[in-house]
């Protein structure tokens, strides 16, 4: 009996540390329904495409990467892979902006 009691007592310390860590696991999330982000829709994809086209029209020689990215992005958005398309279009925009800054 004594052995068990001692065992429990000794384990108490690391267990309490573990529980403390577990408490840090998930913060209070008392929200009923999460808010929706609006920049992941096909409409947004169209908006980005418009922007890209606008900037390409201004530039004389757009780099081939931009063309590739925007074509690819548009294709993916049409096929429903919205996030991937948006990402490519954004990258194209950044490249165009960098080119304009130079």
């Amino acid at each position, binding site marked *: 009996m*004594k052995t068990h009691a*001692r*065992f429990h*007592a*000794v*384990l108490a*310390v*690391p*267990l309490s*540390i*573990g529980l403390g*860590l*577990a408490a*840090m*696991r*998930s*913060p209070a*999330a*008392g*929200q009923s329904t*999460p*808010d*929706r*982000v*609006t*920049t*992941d829709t096909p409409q947004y994809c169209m908006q*980005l495409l418009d*922007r890209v086209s606008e900037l390409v029209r201004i530039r004389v020689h757009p780099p081939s990467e931009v063309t590739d990215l925007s074509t690819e992005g548009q294709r993916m958005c049409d096929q429903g892979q*919205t*996030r991937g398309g*948006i*990402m490519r279009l*954004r*990258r194209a*925009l*950044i490249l165009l*902006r960098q080119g304009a800054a130079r």
Partner: protein
Amino acid sequence: MNDRQCSPPPLEGLGRAADQGWGEGENTPSSEPRHRRSPLWLFRSASLRFAFVYALLLATSAAALAIFLWWATAGLLDRQTDAAIHADAQGLSERWAEGGLPALVLTIDDRLAGNVDDDAIYLLADPIMRRIAGNLERWPSTVRRTDVWYELPVRRAGITTLARMQRYDLPNGFHLLIGRDVQVRARLRTLLTDALLWAAVIVGAMATAGALLVRSMFRRTLANVSATAAAIAAGDFAQRVKLSGRGDEFDQLAETINDMLDRIVRLMDGVRQVSNAIAHDLRTPITRARTRLEDAALHAHSPEELQAAIERATADLDGIVAVFQALLRIAEIEAGSRRSAFARFDLAPLLADVAELYGAVAEDKQVGLAVDSPDRLPAYGDRDLVQQAVANLVDNAVKFSPPGGQVRLRAAAIQGGVEIVVADQGAGIPAGDRARAIERFFRGEAARSTPGAGLGLALVQAVAQLHLGSLRLEDAGPGLRAVLTLPAREDGPGG
């Protein structure tokens, strides 16, 4: 002397401790049930305290490591995110200051368009919380205060992720919400927490095992010591604490205890010797005195005869008293209490004094007494005791020298100490008797006819031992050579 007073209390205390925490009820039939009820019994056992301290240290170190790990990874991510959000807020407020609301809206759109990582959240709302710009559907109801970090779930492309955001209020009453997706960090946090929980369990197991190991090591060593002490207290004086051979602190403790036990045995032997010798050798002069008095009472006729008998008896009693004094002196020296009075002194004048004191006697006996010592000979110890020891040796040498013989008193510094040699050319002590010559009351055959109780050499030996030195008796061919060695250093025998 009451025997009961002789049982040393510390050993009894050890025995009692063996009943309590150390025995753990395994080998002691008399463990009190009282201590099982007290919740503090855990802390009364020293070995358990040590084990607990070890476990606590291990757990604390592990916790410290975990916390550092957390801070360096998930914490770092948090700090980076917060910094980025702050920088964003800074930039946006500058834009608003430059170009007002339209510029702000444009900037927000631009930033969203350039957010390749797709992790940013912006929301610009008017004073009544209507959405003006940004990529959040509506203002989250729970975000009410500025300067507070909120972590709220958001839906991105059909997936619920976590975002960390903060509200900033513009001077015109508009509200800005800037945030970042921290799902990665959340996942990392979960991973880390899981890993650390497992680690905590492992640490707990290791701590327990380690604690038990420490405790058993502790108990084993102490059990060894306490068992030996208990055996000695019970009367088995041959027991000694076992050494592990590693030379560590426990071994040093064991050696010290063994030295102490050796000394106790030696002292007890000394006491036994003395009581035997007293019983045997003091009876003789006491009997003689008594006989003379009885004889005088029966047979003396004149007052002069009575007076003479009384005076002789007084002289006998004085002789007995002198023997007692010498015995007490030896006992006092052996008890070691004089060691606290040790000091540095010069041996050279001491030897000269002793030689001068006995020089007259030697001359009368036509025995030569030569002193050979350096002008200065520093020594360390009790000056009076050393003086008496040397005097005893010289007295013996002169006493047992034949007329025309030579007594040499020589002293020199040797490796780690001082050596005093007294050599005579008398009858000497046969090899077989030399070991016993330093016992109390021992008188060899050759000495039976000379006055003395046989305590001289015993005293010299006691003085030598008190100084952690030695007394050697050698054959001077012919005669006896007594070599008294005293260590010169304060930290015990060097040589």
